[in-house]
């Protein structure tokens, strides 16, 4: 670190004497990142960071794996409050309100001001940039983004006499096709369910958000201060979700997120709704022919977006900010975005990344991966507000009460709505 400072000073001195044109100051960057998938993500990040480091001998960068999303956010905020903020971090896109409220991040829109920079910021797929903006400023750059898609077992479709190239598009079709996919043993116990939609916890809420969006509603608005939970759109989504269990298509009660890919692989369910991040897992483990499709929707397809973006922290020098900006540009370049998507299953974030040779090879081998990109026009940000965790927890609790305890949907939604309104009243 010291050596780099010295080198930086030397470079500056040299610059003053006019012997070099390098105007860049040395920066020591600290970069926090989380891992939320079953993939060699740490190695890939390290590889990409090392490549940047090599290309910029005047700078150093230390990539710090900081746990899951929640832990990484906690660590970054704690470090920032102790005056030791990381320079750059990948944190949940929807943590933007928390980070703004804690006043720890610097907007990209004020750092990346050249024409070239603006073109770069415009190069990301529109759906992903919705949750980067607050109060007219862009605070983050899309990086590791995911969206749920519909996975189905083509062999099971054939066995049930269904067309394996035709996945259900609407909720009504899901129920009709789902019924045909259910298989029972002699004792009447189900050995293969029609589908599996996780409905517990924040993952359950993530999927519910997409269903609501397919009914032309949104659970939260762009302002971060408004929740629209107690609506007809939410009620129809919940009644569809409940009908899956009532019609015997899905395991009754709570359906966990974590067991879902395994249940699909084991043949316990003929289809599932889960993240595009599971493509690699399913591809490696499925012993049957499988396909992917848009999530079945109400009025039209609909899905939530999830995942993390790059943030640059406020409490760093201008030189460090400039270096951090350069690092973020490098990490999100089409080649690196493609590399990242291929090794992890995240959805590449720019059109240019989808045009690279690497990703074309990948989708030629795994055409199922294209569905996540094609579904993006029907996808919208997940639940995001100020006090996000508390607000989302209240909403997830209400969903769980309806699913696992048979609580009345209308009353539960109304109750949760009034609780979150109380919390957000401070912000309006």
């Amino acid at each position, binding site marked *: 670190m010291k050596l780099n400072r010295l080198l930086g000073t030397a470079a500056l001195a040299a610059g003053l004497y006019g012997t070099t044109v390098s105007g860049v100051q040395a920066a020591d960057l600290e970069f926090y990142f989380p891992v939320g998938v079953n993939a060699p993500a740490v190695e890939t990040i390290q590889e990409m960071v090392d490549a940047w480091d090599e290309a910029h001998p005047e700078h150093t960068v230390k990539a710090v794996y900081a746990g899951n999303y*929640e832990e990484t956010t*906690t660590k970054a*905020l704690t470090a920032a409050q102790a005056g030791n903020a990381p320079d750059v971090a990948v944190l949940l896109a929807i943590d933007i309100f*928390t980070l*703004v*409220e*804690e*006043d*720890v991040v610097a907007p990209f829109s004020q750092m990346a001001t050249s024409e070239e920079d603006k073109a770069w910021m415009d190069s990301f797929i529109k759906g992903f940039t919705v949750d980067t903006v607050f109060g007219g400023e862009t605070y983050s750059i899309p990086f590791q983004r995911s969206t749920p898609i519909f996975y189905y077992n083509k062999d099971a479709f054939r066995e049930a006499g269904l067309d394996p190239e035709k996945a259900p598009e609407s909720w009504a079709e899901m129920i009709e096709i789902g019924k045909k996919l259910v298989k029972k*043993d002699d*004792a009447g*116990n*189900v*050995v293969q*369910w029609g589908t599996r939609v996780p409905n*517990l*916890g924040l993952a359950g809420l993530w999927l519910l958000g997409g269903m609501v969006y397919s009914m032309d509603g949104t659970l939260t608005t762009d302002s971060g201060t408004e929740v629209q939970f107690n609506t007809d759109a939410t009620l129809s989504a919940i009644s569809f979700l409940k009908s899956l269990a009532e019609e015997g298509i899905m*395991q*009754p*009660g*709570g*359906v*966990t997120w*974590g*067991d879902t890919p*395994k*249940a699909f692989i*084991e043949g*316990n*369910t003929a289809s599932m709704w889960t993240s595009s991040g599971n493509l690699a897992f399913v591809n490696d483990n499925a012993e049957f022919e499988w396909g992917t499709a848009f999530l079945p929707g109400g009025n039209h397809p609909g899905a939530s977006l999830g995942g993390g973006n790059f943030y640059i922290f406020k409490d760093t020098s201008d030189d460090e900010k400039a270096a951090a900006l350069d690092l973020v540009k490098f990490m999100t370049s089409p080649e690196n975005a493609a590399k990242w998507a291929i090794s992890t299953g995240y959805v590449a974030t720019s059109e240019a990344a989808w045009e690279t040779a690497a990703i074309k090879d990948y989708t030629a081998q795994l055409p199922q991966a294209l569905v996540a990109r094609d579904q993006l026009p029907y996808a919208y940000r997940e639940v995001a507000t100020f*006090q996000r*965790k*508390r607000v989302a*927890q209240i909403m*997830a*609790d*209400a969903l*769980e*009460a309806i*699913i*696992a*305890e048979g*609580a009345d949907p209308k009353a539960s939604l109304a109750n949760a709505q009034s609780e979150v309104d109380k919390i957000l009243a*401070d912000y309006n």
Partner: protein
Amino acid sequence: MNKPLGISRAIALLGVPLVLLITFTHYPLLQSVVSSFWSKGTKIRPSKFIGLDNYAKLFDDPVLAKVMWNSLIYAAVTIPVTVALSIAMALLVNSKLPGRALMRLSFFLPTMLPMIAVANLWLFVYVPGYGLIAQVMIWLGLPDINFLGSSETALWAMMVVAVWKEAGLFMIFYLAALQSIPQNLKEAAVLEGAGKARVFRDIVWPLLAPTTVFVAINAMLNAFRVIDHVVAMTNGGPNNASALLLFYIYQVAFGFRDFPYGATLTVLLAGILGLFAIVQFKLLDRRTHYQ
């Protein structure tokens, strides 16, 4: 024969543990009490002094009511069951049955595993459809149970895991205690015509009392202190059905970032544990014979 210690050396010897105790126990607790009088603050909305508002909120928090109730059931069930099971296992492996060493090992094995590993193991046991229990149920022609996905069963499923994990450790303490019970007491009782049940009730059980005090206190601490399995298996759900007090504190402080309310809940937890400890020592001590 013991020379009195010089005052300076005494201070030095007491000082080290005192510093540790103050740094890691007393100061944080005091700090919790202090911050419980403040409101949640962010850089944009600084924390304000709100007196006892956080304490008033305790009575108006439906999640806390549920969590307290869960913790109460959890402690009331897991403590006696763990004690009973660990005595039963200790008696079993203390007898002269064949395969004793294997039995000791298998009873003790769960204790050696980290709780996260245990939780992952049990996730597979409980998962509906293709989990261990589900496969047995299907084979028997019985309907499947969604243990972790229904509010009626989630907490009980957690308790089974906790008992399974802890009974083995306490078995070791009981085993040691059993082996220190003089054989002649039992023989004398048998000569007097006492049956096995009578020997256990009047000789073994009273002599195990100091161990029982120790085990009961530890089991109680663990009932409030160990939440890894809740985090790994249900995250408190469905609808807080399996959330315990310490889990809720973690959620409020680090999830919701409401540190002052988290501190208030911590004060509540410390109060409850302190109270239990006093009651246990007073009550049990009086009826316990130390050898």
